[in-house]
């Protein structure tokens, strides 16, 4: 048990913080822990969590993706065209939406790897392109998603929010196998030391492109889940999600220098961030003060997470972090 804690210290701390925040949220919410309240909370969390997971894969290989929000906007606009039919159409439509994200991510990866340009700039530029395409599709917000399908994805199954079930499936069915596979290990290896990874025979270029494509896929998933929740297409959703996804992975204990952290951490970070803002909404604080408090809490959480630096005896250790 202690071993488990040692290996997942970052996730454990994040989980405790989330648990405390969520308890506070349920306690202050006028309707308590009803299925309805939890479903809405889980839906909001899952959108940001998927965006944070998208950011996670790119950050893991020492990148940063400033196009997460843009890919979400693009797949959201695609969804508002293809998720209108029924039956098999919906099935292919959902795949098309997620594939849109994968393609965008793969494009980012190809430019980063073969163009040898820093990820932050590449994704800044491609983000602009993706937003442009999204605007071509939906100059003004509009379109609809099949309501029955959207409902099925955003309500609850036997009292458990569908969003929570999706999370569980992702973690157990996708993350744990991936983490143990060669590809998962290669992600961590490249993030920890690219040279060592290269010398131990990992094809660094391919794996890095895979990481970007995987990030794009999750951004596509985030975009499609956003579509289920809002049931419409809007090209203007990008800015918030990009920056929040970065804040979320950091809160979840993922190191921006690569190689450290897990998908669970990204998920927890996103939930913490979202719970803080939901908490504000029902806290009875003056509405005008809420953005400030939200900012201070975010900054405080990040600062506390880094406060171990103050305990370091040797000034030189600080530089190795």
């Amino acid at each position, binding site marked *: 048990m202690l071993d488990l804690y040692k290996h997942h210290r970052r996730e454990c701390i994040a989980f405790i913080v989330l648990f405390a925040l969520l308890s506070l949220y349920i306690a202050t919410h006028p309707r308590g822990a009803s299925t309805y309240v939890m479903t809405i909370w889980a839906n909001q969390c899952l959108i940001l969590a998927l965006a944070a997971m998208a950011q996670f894969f790119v950050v893991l290989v020492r990148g*940063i993706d400033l196009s997460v929000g843009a890919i979400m906007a693009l797949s959201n606009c695609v969804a508002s065209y293809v998720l209108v039919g029924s039956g098999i159409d919906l099935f292919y439509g959902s795949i098309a939406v997620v594939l849109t994200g994968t393609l965008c991510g793969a494009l980012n990866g190809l*430019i980063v790897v073969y*163009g*040898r*340009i*820093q990820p*932050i*700039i*590449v994704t*800044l*530029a*491609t*983000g*602009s*392109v993706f*937003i*442009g*395409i*999204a*605007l*071509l599709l939906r*100059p003004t917000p509009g379109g609809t998603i099949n309501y029955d399908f959207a409902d099925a994805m955003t309500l609850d199954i036997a009292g458990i929010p569908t969003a929570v079930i999706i999370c569980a499936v992702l973690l157990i069915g996708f993350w744990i196998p991936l983490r143990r596979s060669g590809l998962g290990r290669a992600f961590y290896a490249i993030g920890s030391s690219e040279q060592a990874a290269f010398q131990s025979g990992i094809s660094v270029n391919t794996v890095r492109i895979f990481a970007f494509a995987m990030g794009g896929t999750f951004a596509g998933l985030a975009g499609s889940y956003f579509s289920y929740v809002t049931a419409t297409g809007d090209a203007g959703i990008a*800015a918030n999600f990009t*920056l929040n996804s*970065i*804040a979320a992975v*950091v809160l979840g204990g993922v190191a*921006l*220098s690569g190689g450290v952290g897990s998908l669970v951490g990204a998920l927890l970070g996103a939930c913490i961030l979202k719970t803080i803002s939901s908490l504000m909404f029902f806290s009875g604080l003056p509405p*005008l*003060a*809420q*953005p*400030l*408090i*939200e*900012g*201070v809490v*975010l*900054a405080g959480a*990040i*600062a506390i997470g*880094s*406060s171990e*630096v*103050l305990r370091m005896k040797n*000034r*030189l250790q*600080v*530089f*190795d*972090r």
Partner: protein
Amino acid sequence: MSNTATARFYSAEFFEAAFPYVATVLMILGASTFFPEFLSANYLLQQMQIAAFLGVIALGATIVILLGHIDLSVPWVLGGAAIISTAMAGSDNAILIALAVPAALAFGALVGVVNGIGVAWFRIPSMVWTLAVNSMLLGVAVLNTGGFNPKGEASPLMVTMASGKIAQIPMAFVIWMALALILFVFLKRGGYGRYLSSIGFNEKATYLSGVSTLRVIFSAFMIAGACSALGGVLLAGYANQAYQSMGDPYLMPTIAAVVIGGTSILGGKGTLAGTIGGVAFITLLSSILSVMQISEAWRNIIFGCIIITMLLLQTLRRKRV
């Protein structure tokens, strides 16, 4: 360094900085074959004025990026400075009116100190910390203005700074160039510029060789904050008011301008002259795209594609060198 090596080093740096200028001239000449007005003195002088707003911000951003950090608090430092200066200039008190501009600049430097505390003391990744600072500033602004457009107006001094002219040359452009000159001298004199780049290359080695890295990082963020604040003052003088989220459209173009100017986003390498060229390129590119009445969607797409192309050309050229 031997004589030829020194010469090669300086010529490489020269070509790096000259690249965006060549691209800018080619772009203007190309565009003038469709619209001859692009070559008129009036248009170019007006663009010099517009470019100055982005230009002063990008000068500060260059200094932080040379360190290997990034300042994402630009939007609300700019907005906050604009709000402070217009609020003070709009009062009846002569002293407050006179102090409007210095107070705004001091505000920018103060935010720089806060950025420095997180980045230099707590060693939080600058990308996350400055983002959190930005959201706190947003919170303060919302609390202060109640979410409405802040009251106040620009003082005559601010209007002159932004829209005045000296012998046909826009005053804003003169301020931009003067600031560039001051910073250039400051960087070259006393080794400050060398400390910046060497921290960007290897912070530990710089610290071990006796440089007070803390002081350098703090001062760099203070300069960057003051530059963003100056941008806010100029913009407020230009629009004769401050408005909500006036800084948002300046964050991404700033980074793009610095990188197109040949500064490495990883730090350690870059020039102020290159950044000025990058700003000219970005400003003219967006101006040409909007004069040609291209829809917002296509503007985004072309903007992104051109930035990627520019960076690909840079890498190709470097490989050959």
